[in-house]
């Protein structure tokens, strides 16, 4: 209203825009810690920057070309894909199975659940170190146990053929409880009436599961898959302490490879280009999953 005094107009403005007073501090920090790095990486990836040299020539998309044409990068990208596929599907199936089994027990349920979720509370690096010890070819419990059945000591982490799957199994060991927790929480929120009426109508358990449980759990399942995919994609800690990418890059993940490119080989621009590629890829994957998810969940 133009006829209102300035103080009144100011008051109305602050009333309408009051949410910014609450949000601005958090938003500014988030822009600094998230948007700035992305812009920085994009910028750096277009130049040739190393920690050692002062000159920074503009090289356009050359870093991206070099990365995509680099066998090691392709190899680690494929390794990462392998982790994502096997760790996500393994932890999902196991977690879902445990959630279903958990509905069939009564006594001791709380205790069982508490024990089962211990792995997700552990630092991944601690998990990795612990399994190093378990898998030690000389004194590890796993080989000792296998020895009881006459199976000779295995060096699972040192062999290219087994190292990758071993790391994936440890990752599954740590993260299937997360899927279990999410699915269990999702099942707890399902309405009872449809299940009771289906049972009254004599529908078989399998059909109830296929036609009622699974469709109703769809959003929950998607959240579990989304979180696991994102986490498996960035795997670093466990691999770093268990194999450090070896033998011969067979277990090296993208995060580890880019870390090494930047900090061991000081190729900052290459690493930045690689991390942008990584971000684009995970952004694309999660955007697709997100779209699918938002079809049935109303957020915000």
């Amino acid at each position, binding site marked *: 209203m133009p006829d209102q005094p300035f103080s009144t107009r100011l008051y109305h403005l602050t009333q309408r825009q009051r*949410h910014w007073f*609450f*949000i601005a*501090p*958090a*938003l500014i920090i988030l822009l*600094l*810690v*998230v948007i*700035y*790095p*992305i812009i920085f990486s994009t910028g750096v990836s277009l130049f040739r920057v190393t920690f050692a040299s002062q000159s920074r020539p503009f090289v356009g998309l050359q870093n991206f070309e070099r990365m995509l044409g680099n066998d090691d990068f392709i190899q680690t990208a494929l390794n990462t894909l392998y982790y994502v596929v096997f760790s996500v599907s393994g932890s999902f199936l196991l977690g879902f199975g445990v959630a279903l*089994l*958990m509905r*069939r*027990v*009564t006594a001791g349920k709380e205790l*069982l659940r*508490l*024990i*089962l979720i211990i792995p*997700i*509370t552990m*630092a991944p*690096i*601690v998990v990795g*170190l*612990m*399994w190093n*010890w378990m898998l030690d070819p*000389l*004194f590890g*419990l796993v080989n*000792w146990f296998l020895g009881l059945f006459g199976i000779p000591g295995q060096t699972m982490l040192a062999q290219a053929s087994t190292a990758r799957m071993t790391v994936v199994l440890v990752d599954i*060991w740590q993260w299937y409880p997360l899927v279990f*927790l*999410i699915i269990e*929480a999702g099942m707890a*929120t399902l309405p009872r009436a449809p299940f009771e009426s289906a049972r009254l109508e004599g529908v078989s358990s399998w059909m109830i599961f296929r036609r009622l449980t699974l469709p109703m759990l769809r959003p929950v399942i998607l*959240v*579990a898959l989304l*979180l696991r995919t994102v986490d498996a994609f*960035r795997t*670093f*800690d466990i691999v770093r*302490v268990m194999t450090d990418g070896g033998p011969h890059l067979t277990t090296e993940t993208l*995060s580890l490879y880019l*870390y090494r490119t930047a900090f061991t080989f000081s190729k*900052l621009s290459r*690493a*930045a280009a690689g*991390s942008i590629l*990584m*971000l684009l890829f*995970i*952004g694309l994957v999660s955007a697709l999953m997100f779209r699918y*998810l938002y079809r049935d*969940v109303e*957020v*915000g």
Partner: protein
Amino acid sequence: MRVPTSERILAYVILIVMAILVLVPVLAGSITAFKPQIIWVSSPPTWIFEPTLENFEFVFFTRKGWVYLRNSLIISGGSVAVALILGVPAAYAFARFRFRSSKALMQWLISLRMIPPIVVGLPFYAMFLYLERGLGIGLRDTFPGLIITYQTFLLPLVIWMMRGYFAELPAAMEESAMVEGYTRLGALWRVVLPVVFPGIVATAILNFIFAWNEFFLALILAGNRTSTLPMTAGTYIVRTRVEWGNLFAVNLIIMVPVIVLTIILRRQLVKGLTFGILE
């Protein structure tokens, strides 16, 4: 639901096996922390021995474990405190005020969960380096530097979790206080915050666990002065020899507080781990 006995027994058997698969590595590893050095790597494993605290003494004092513990506490506690101070007001606004960009902003916050830490760690390392060289502002290997960086994963989670807690309360609660003579901030402070306090505690605990277990960003951005407990765990591996007893002593120091906190938090755990997307 009625479950046939055979099915129930099968469920118990499988679940107990799963529990054993969790407990055996955790416990067997942990007792190594109490073994004297000569039986750290005995094979077959020694199960009966006289427990000793010498490994803990060694890592805590000789290897300065108490410094790393202190560093971890400062970094985790500090970054959770900062995340709460910044995140709680923002969460309140998202829960209460209708504004055009609110939904898009909340979705953007979830999307931050997707960003691989390398994308953040690398530029931060470079930025800290340039700030130090160019402006003489030292953030590398400092507590503030790490605390700021940790906001990438703590702040979005705090906002999402707290928004859920605020949204559960009727808006009439603070509106009532506003009609009764308080400003919105006064109402927030005297009425709303006391009510959501349990939610703040739950949010703080979960975020503390994430910060406490964090390894990657610390590896890149921390140094001698700010090394955290997870970082030191790796120092007990030397190519030729692993000091297993000492390593598991460190592992226990990292693990035990988190397990205790998890038991306290178990009801709120899912909400936090899933960003509350499923509310």
